[in-house]
């Protein structure tokens, strides 16, 4: 368990990072930081610039400008990169080598001893139900098993910062839950986790803070709760006595009726009145049986924020 004071230690700081490919600006002056014990979501549709940003953080790509600071130091050096675990979006292993050989080699490149890595690898294999597969060749394993091995390769050297690029891609729901559990456990142990994804519902479940990126630029950044709380729209679902007229809501300033049935109406509210006033007005006109008030899901906040800025989001890009 991590002590309270340690939680604020900055594991990663990105400042004004910019990278272009020819005329296309892939990452455009983004800045954010990730603290110890954070699960930080880097969100955006496909092609938003997430992988480019991550590759710069990992030292695989050079930035045109800006700075990456690891563990409160400067740039990725040997000691720094050895403390990072990385699961890239484009995943792979040596298919003609055994599981354990793959893990020991990759751990060795992170500077840990063979004996230590061997112990850790076996513990992880055991935990993810793959202990019997240690001496099998990777190409004899299923895709799901290979994904677990790749995940183990990213954590076997006990990193302080774990970078997961689309970790849930291609996983079935059971394994998604398994990975979520493991990620939460690592967070408990104080590992800072930078998680890139385009499945916003998954991120919403896991992340404390998020950075939303679109076409290389920042869309939203901050604590997830703060972002949702600060978003000007709310979704209101009201169930009332059958036969009553909820038509007044269509004329209500700031309200847009999304769905209307005999005893139920759902509205999107972005007016200036306080929620309490709105609730009072509704209860004066209808006999309430049930009422729920919530902020829109993250992907909706993302899409609307992008559109409000006059930009477009490709429908297939986010989920």
């Amino acid at each position, binding site marked *: 368990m991590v002590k309270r004071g340690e939680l604020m230690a900055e594991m990663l700081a990105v400042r004004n990072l910019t990278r272009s490919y020819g005329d296309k600006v892939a990452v455009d002056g983004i800045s954010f930081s990730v603290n110890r014990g954070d699960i930080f979501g880097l969100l955006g549709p496909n092609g938003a610039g997430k992988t480019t940003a991550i590759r710069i953080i990992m030292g*695989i790509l050079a930035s045109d400008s800006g700075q990456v600071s690891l563990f409160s130091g400067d740039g990725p050096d040997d000691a720094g990169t050895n403390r990072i675990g990385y699961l*890239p979006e484009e995943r792979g292993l040596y298919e003609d080598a055994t599981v354990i050989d793959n893990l020991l080699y990759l751990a060795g490149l992170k500077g840990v001893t063979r004996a230590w890595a061997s112990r850790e690898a076996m513990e992880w294999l055991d935990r993810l139900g793959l202990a019997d597969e240690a001496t099998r060749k990777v190409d004899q394993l299923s895709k799901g098993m290979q994904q677990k091995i*790749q995940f183990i390769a990213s954590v076997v050297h006990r990193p302080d910062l774990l970078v997961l690029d689309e970790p849930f891609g291609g996983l079935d729901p059971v394994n998604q839950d398994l990975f979520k559990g493991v990620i939460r456990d690592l967070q408990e142990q104080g590992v800072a986790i930078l998680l890139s994804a385009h499945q916003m519902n998954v991120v919403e479940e896991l992340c404390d803070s998020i950075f939303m990126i679109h076409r290389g630029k920042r869309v939203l950044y901050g604590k997830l709760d703060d972002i949702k709380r600060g978003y000007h729209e709310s979704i209101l679902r009201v169930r009332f006595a059958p036969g009553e007229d909820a038509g007044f809501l269509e004329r209500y300033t700031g309200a847009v009726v999304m769905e209307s049935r005999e005893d139920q109406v759902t509205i999107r509210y972005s007016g200036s009145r306080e929620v309490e006033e709105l609730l009072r007005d509704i209860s004066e006109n209808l006999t309430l049986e049930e009422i729920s008030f919530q902020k829109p899901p993250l992907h909706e906040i993302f899409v609307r924020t992008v559109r409000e800025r006059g930009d477009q989001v490709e429908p297939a890009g986010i989920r």
Partner: protein
Amino acid sequence: MSQLGFGNVMKVARWEFLKSVRTPTFIILTLIIPLIMLVTAGVSYLSAQTADSESVELAVLDHIGDFYDELTEHVDRQQEVNLTIIRYEGPQEHLESEVTAGDYDGFLVVDEEAVRTGDIPYFVSDIRDASPQVLSGLLSASVTSYRLQQIGLEREQIDEATVPVTVRARPLDPDEGIGSIIGPLVVAMILMFSALFSGQILMYGVLKEKRNRIVEILLSSISSVELLVGKMVGYGALGLTQIAVWVGAGALVAMRFMNLSQIAMGPGEIVIYCAYFLLGYALLASLFAAMGATMKDAEEGSQAQGLVILIPIVPIFVSGPIFMAPEALWVRVLSHIPPFIPATVLLRMASTQLPVWEIATTLIALIASVVLFVYAAARIFERGMLQFDRNISLKEIRRMLSS
């Protein structure tokens, strides 16, 4: 560009070596060449043995009368051919029938005219079985001896006058033996084989890492230069292992037929050959690795690779003119052009004594080009390895190198 750490280079080299040395392809290829060597040597040895053990029985129709004795003396002295001669007293027609029947392998007809002109008729039933070259030396010596006898010389005088003459070239420098000719040739061949084999595995290894995407994980732990150099060292060691097996097997086979001390080389020569070999390998390996990084799949690899293989072996294609004129200006120029340096210089070394200054300038050119090639390869490697789904165009490669 990124840093180069010895520890990481060795980790990559060790992994690549151990991973490849256990593959069936490597084991089969490494064993099959010595096996071919052994089989070829065995077959030629056996056929030579069989040829030696074959006996030839010839009848001699001596119309002079005393030539047969002279011939017998020479036949007894020689050891090359298992030859038996028998004096035949009957008519030639009968002898022809006996040869046709297989009683003799053939017959010689000797008379005054034949001894005078030196044209001795040799009859065989099938002209394809005749090996006159085997007999010519023997008959030549016998006829010369007989003629001298007729002049009146004694046997001792004849023996003294007919001692065979042989011409044997000797180097002015007693240390310069056949090793100085065979050494560079062997090194040139080994360089080509090693570069070809190791380079091929290296390139496919790079392609494979691109295809299965593991390269991104690797590059998040070590620099592209460390990965590149580690691979070059690993596959270089693999090539050397293979060469050691081949040379060992070759030496064992060669020992059967020749005195290996004849091709022994001095330490100075070994150091120079090793320098050309190692630097030449590094040059070609970096070329192969860079190529692998620019390609999308193995099919593309084999086509483009064919072209790259041709470049360093160009000197082998023109080895004839290089041997004939090792000091020619164009050969000297070729000796300083990076991909051709190792093979050209080694071929020249086999045909002439290179001046020290030229060894120095070619080595300097080679070292400089290795540094340049590895640097360029690392740049291409760094940028090309993450381009998973496409080939890199020449224009892009130019941009990678200039940026």
